[in-house]
């Protein structure tokens, strides 16, 4: 198992203690709830869309450092991006966690690369991915809450 500092990088801990865009968007165009039934992590994600562009994004909820930091970084990385680009970022993020042998797409990932260590902790991958499933649910406008199951 890799060193703990690989998993809990400072940037992750910093996002955990001071999450970005940690609020409810009162006039959200889209929103979705995410829930990890196994560990109880909960998230609510809110989006404002300007045409095809995600102009605003906020989240609320409770969860472990990994799920919270991942959600915080998500809001940073997709804000101002097109829906298509957001999906590309999700794809790159998913590949980084599930195919750790491959070279990550650094351009798409930016800060999210600091979550690469999660790939070494299979039980925690769901924590990192919860916010992203929730984003997908919000973009698709599905009513049911997203889960990692």
């Amino acid at each position, binding site marked *: *198992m890799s060193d*703990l*500092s690989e*998993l*809990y990088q*400072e940037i*992750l*801990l*910093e996002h*955990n*203690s001071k999450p970005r865009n940690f609020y409810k968007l009162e006039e959200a165009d889209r929103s979705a709830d995410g829930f990890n039934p*196994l*560990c*109880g*992590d*909960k998230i609510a994600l809110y989006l404002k869309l300007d045409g095809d562009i995600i102009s605003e994004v906020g989240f609320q909820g*409770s*969860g*472990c*450092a*990994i799920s*919270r930091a991942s959600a915080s970084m998500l809001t940073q990385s997709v804000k101002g991006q097109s829906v298509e680009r957001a999906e590309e970022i999700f794809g790159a993020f998913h590949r980084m966690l599930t195919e750790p042998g491959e070279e990550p797409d650094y351009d798409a990932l930016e800060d999210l690369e600091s979550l690469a260590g999660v790939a070494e*902790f299979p*039980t*925690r991958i769901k*924590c990192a991915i919860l916010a992203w499933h929730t984003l997908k649910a919000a973009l698709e406008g599905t009513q049911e809450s997203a889960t990692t199951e």
Partner: protein
Amino acid sequence: MTTGSSGAITPVVGPGVDVETVRTDFPVLHQMVNGKPLVYLDNASTSQKPQAVIDTLVQYYTMDNSNVHRGVHTLSQRATDHYEEARAKVRRFINAEADEEIIYVRGTTEGINLVAQTFGRQNVGEGDEIIVTAMEHHSNIVPWQILCQERGAHLKVIPITDSGELVMEEYERLLGPRTKLVSIVHQSNALGTVNPAKQITDMAHGLGVPVLVDGAQSAPHMTVDVQDLGCDFFVFSGHKLYGPTGIGVLYGRADLLNAMPPYQGGGEMIKSVTFEKTIYNDLPHKFEAGTPDIAGAIGLGTAIDYISNLGMSNIYNYERELLEYGTQRLSAIEGLQIIGTAREKAGVLSFVMEGIHPHDIGTILDTEGIAVRTGHHCAQPVMDRYEIPATARASLALYNTREEIDALVKGIDRTIEVFGRGL
């Protein structure tokens, strides 16, 4: 307690249990996990197995494997004898009156479902009530919800205090003419609270209401005497009691079991079958349709021998001292809060930490070789009661040591250190 081969007295760690000798009986404990010696503190989920239990399973499949109550051949007779001897061991272990009152099931969950689907469907009707506590495992909530939904009955919940004790006045108030069953956890898996099962039973019996006691957590840690408790049903799992997975026990009073319809139909549970009419078998076979977990039952018998030889009161005293030590050490950690501080408590140290989620605690402890459970412990209503999403839980067994508690404390210190960098 023991005299070593040199004739010198071996130091006894704790009253009555020589933990170093005990540890040599559990092979799984002697391994490195993530480069550190394994510290197994997830015993409320499942306990480890002594070599004697493992050997029993190997012996059974190597020499005796056969179906029970069916063949005239030697192996079948041998398997049947061992299977029924194990039933007698279970009876003695919980001091039931008769072997026929011991029904083998898959585990506590199946035992409760059996009672819900037989006794429950027979006795619970529209507007009736079933009483549980606010600290139940999901396995003692959902089977009753299913029954209530089917019957138009209501589930009533005895509330708990901040320390995790039942509010007995509320229980008294909930008991009434519509109460058809009281089903309570003996020892809470999430909080460690030991409930006054005898008093609860007495109060219910005052109104003629039967009581089921969920002993999944209590049976491994204390002497259980179903006749003294007076309960009508008692359920527990083999795998939390140092036995194999897949085997558990439902104890029921013979008169109740006789009056109940069968749970599942099939072989073994019948006396005679024609397409017109089936005559059900006598207890306990009436409730044991199909080929049972024969090896598991025999292994459970060995596990009961193992702990009975050590003595349940010795185990209780040893673990109690360890729990007190753990409580002291954990309470001294700044920012750590123990969830569940009942006066009567056993085996469980559930805790939360300021600013650090239980899953992160669990992952960091794992890198130190320490196994704890994190999450809601299949007791979401308990988490809601304390307004927390989850806890980290260290749960004890007879092979745990003070040194392992010290390792846990060191692991928690490490967690604080890791998280301190980000604050």
